[in-house]
């Protein structure tokens, strides 16, 4: 490796569905670093064939026990991979990743889903307390602690 800062490993996490699609839109940027992906459907593995991929349990605020399982599994993954940055586009498992990042002093980035037009998501509001940076994809929702830098579809 050349002198200077080594490239930081990124752990990118999103639930399957729209959250995952939005995360994959960032792949060209993520590919500048070594990126490990985490999602919640086995079918996601084939979409990132060149990356390390972990499948974890899907969870939401309506399935508290699965949230605990998700937290424990993600904790193990993060300890093992030791990423320099954790990034998530949601939802609950991504939030778990952000909270674990805070506990382990890892830099964390929450990108609120583009679906949240009127106000930031429930997870996003919680992420505000834990994440190093929180982004919205709508300029109207930008505030002192919520950043706006475009959307994943622009």
């Amino acid at each position, binding site marked *: 490796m050349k002198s200077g800062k080594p490239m930081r490993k990124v752990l990118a996490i999103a*639930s*399957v*569905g*729209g959250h995952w699609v939005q995360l994959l839109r960032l792949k060209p940027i993520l590919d500048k670093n070594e990126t490990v992906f985490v999602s919640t*459907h086995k*079918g*996601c593995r*084939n*979409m990132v064939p060149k990356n390390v991929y972990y499948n974890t349990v*899907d969870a*939401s605020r309506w399935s508290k026990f699965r949230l605990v399982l998700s937290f424990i599994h993600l904790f193990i993954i993060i300890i093992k991979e030791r990423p320099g940055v954790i990034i998530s586009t949601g939802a609950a498992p991504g939030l778990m990743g952000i909270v674990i990042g805070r506990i382990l002093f890892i830099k964390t980035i929450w990108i609120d889903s583009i679906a949240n037009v009127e106000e930031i998501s429930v997870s996003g509001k919680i992420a505000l307390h834990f994440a190093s940076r929180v982004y919205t994809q709508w300029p109207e929702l930008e505030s002192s602690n919520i950043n706006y830098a475009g959307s994943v579809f622009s």
Partner: protein
Amino acid sequence: MIFVTVGTQAPFDRLLEYIDDIFYQLGEELVVQAPNSAYTPKNFTILSFFGSS
């Protein structure tokens, strides 16, 4: 071809029923992704997940 997709966490059987009802009016090939559905359409098949290979 019409692509129909619903959310990943909850079913949306009403939508599938409506599409089933108007299937012959549409006159198009349907590709439908709908996990966790209780409704079984008469006129088309449902795939639970599309992954790229």
